[in-house]
């Protein structure tokens, strides 16, 4: 175990570059057709000759294709840099790692802020409603384009976990394993409720203008509030107490209702920062696709998983109250009832939902060994000496 722990702090993938794949059209679940479609993606490591070492990483609501390394001339490392790189959980010396920005996103893939070829203006609300399955169908086109018959694994946290489940259900012959982390097969009313408050905050912003804000001021306040709500749900009572306590900010002005407490300042900062990098309409479309997601489309999950040969590793976190462990356990239960080999671990973390981005050490251990087993196709390790 010590070895992996040391390695998890290993090297970075270094400077990486976004790539773009454009295809003619995508038939959406709504019946509408989106044409053309571009996906921004990044790859790390080298695809082996058999093309058997490809892993597709699936990002969460506000993520993007930039998982690891840095872009030329920038300092920001990717959103899961602790997990992707040489010697890390997704070892780029061994595996070929792909991550694409989701359909509907705003980081290079086609979304509501993209130009509508029919009007030569941003789609805004002319953009069709998309689903998690649509995102996965677009990713499937990318994976086909890269010449990969079968993925070693599909993996993601939160909304990324939903995409992993969608891959498993829709393309079982295309994946050898799936790793859904801190996720659910479908949203509970509580989860939908939080998303709805976020959407309402955006739509209540006078600058939102029914989505037509691209040539004027952005609905910044609304999107920032949505993000603030999000951040509250990503943390836990304990992690907030540890991070902020009831600490007051030093340089508060003598104005009523200014951000006195550290936690207020943090939320405002996070909210304001988010506005610079995320599109409000994308936030509406993506959260709606998450709320509408149902891995088994009204049937029982066990039923749709029946006969699937892929191996599954499910990870949850004890303090995650946004995606509570019981939702992961339901996925595990369905896997077992359908005969899928599923390993499940509930990591004892205080970070709340954010834990899937932060608990790299434990995740590295679980994922490293799980991927090894799937890649080399063994039942148990060769030597007993562990």
């Amino acid at each position, binding site marked *: 175990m010590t070895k992996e722990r040391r390695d998890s702090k290993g090297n970075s993938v270094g400077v990486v570059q976004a790539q773009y794949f454009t295809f003619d059209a995508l038939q959406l679940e709504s019946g509408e057709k989106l044409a053309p479609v571009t996906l921004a993606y990044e790859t790390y490591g080298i695809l082996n000759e058999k093309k058997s070492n490809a892993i597709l990483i699936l990002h969460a609501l506000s993520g993007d294709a930039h998982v690891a390394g840095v872009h030329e001339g920038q300092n920001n490392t990717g959103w899961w840099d602790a997990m992707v790189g040489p010697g890390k959980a997704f070892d780029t010396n061994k595996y070929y790692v792909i991550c694409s920005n989701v359909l509907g996103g705003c980081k290079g893939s086609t979304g509501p802020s993209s130009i509508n070829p029919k009007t030569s203006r941003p789609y805004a609300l002319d953009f069709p409603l998309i689903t998690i399955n649509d995102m996965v169908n677009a990713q499937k086109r990318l994976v086909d384009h890269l010449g990969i018959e079968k993925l070693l694994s599909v993996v993601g946290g939160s909304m990324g976990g939903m995409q992993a489940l969608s891959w498993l259900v829709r393309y079982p012959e295309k994946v050898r394993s799936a790793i859904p982390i801190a996720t659910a097969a479908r949203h509970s009313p509580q989860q939908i409720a939080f998303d709805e408050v976020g959407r309402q905050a955006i739509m209540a912003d006078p600058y939102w203008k029914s989505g037509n804000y691209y040539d004027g001021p952005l609905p910044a306040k609304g999107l920032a509030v949505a993000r603030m709500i999000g951040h509250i749900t990503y943390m836990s009572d304990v992690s907030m107490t540890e991070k902020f306590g009831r600490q007051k900010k030093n340089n508060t002005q003598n104005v009523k209702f200014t951000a006195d407490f550290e936690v207020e300042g943090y939320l405002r900062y996070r909210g304001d920062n988010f506005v610079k990098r995320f599109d409000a309409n994308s936030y509406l479309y993506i959260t709606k696709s998450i709320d509408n997601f149902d891995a088994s489309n009204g049937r029982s999950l066990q039923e749709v998983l029946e006969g699937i040969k892929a191996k599954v590793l499910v990870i949850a976190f004890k303090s995650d109250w946004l995606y509570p462990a019981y939702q992961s356990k339901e996925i595990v239960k369905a896997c077992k009832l359908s005969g899928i080999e599923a390993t499940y671990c509930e990591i004892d973390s205080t970070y709340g939902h954010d834990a899937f981005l932060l608990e790299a050490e434990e995740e590295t*251990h679980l994922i490293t060994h799980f991927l090894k087993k799937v890649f080399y196709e063994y039942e148990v390790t060769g030597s007993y000496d562990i």
Partner: protein
Amino acid sequence: MTYENIRLDHRVILGLVEPCSTILDLGCGTGELLYILIKEKNVRGQGIEIDEKAIYKCVAKGLTVSHSDIDSGLAEYRDKSFDYVILNQSFQQVKKPDVVLREALRVGKKVIVAFPNFAYYQVRLQIFFKGKTPMTASLPYEWYDTPNLHFLSISDFIGYCRKRNIKVEETVFIGKNKTVKIFPNWFALTGLFLISSGKKCQGE
């Protein structure tokens, strides 16, 4: 690894299990037994374990293991979905052994149960002469830090099986370094039972 290095109780279980069978190990710990069974008997096995650190060790061995509490039920398994369900030294540690055993007999065609014998002669002597909570090779814990919640003897379990109409298919009584044949309720540290549902449930 050589056969002799395998723990005696593991060796006994290894001898009881049919090759290439399917196994669910309840309270599999760090997965030693499961690992040996897969290696030596080519079984298809998976475990349930409540301790997170033990889960990591299982995963490192390549085992399929689920982080959960066997007391909270085995609802995720169909009836008779395993050839064997194993409760090795975990039986006396669950909150409701009666419920867990019933569930084990539901999901397994056969169940292997092993537990420390509370009527071992040293236990009796320690209570009788010292008046203290006994500690033996199979009950190595102080009263204040024992994971054991239930204390039963081999005779207790035989009586229980009779009462519950559980069929005892095989018994192995384990002493310090060898199996015990005579007066096991006196001289065995551990009682190991291969059981199945009673007659009325057979043929299911």
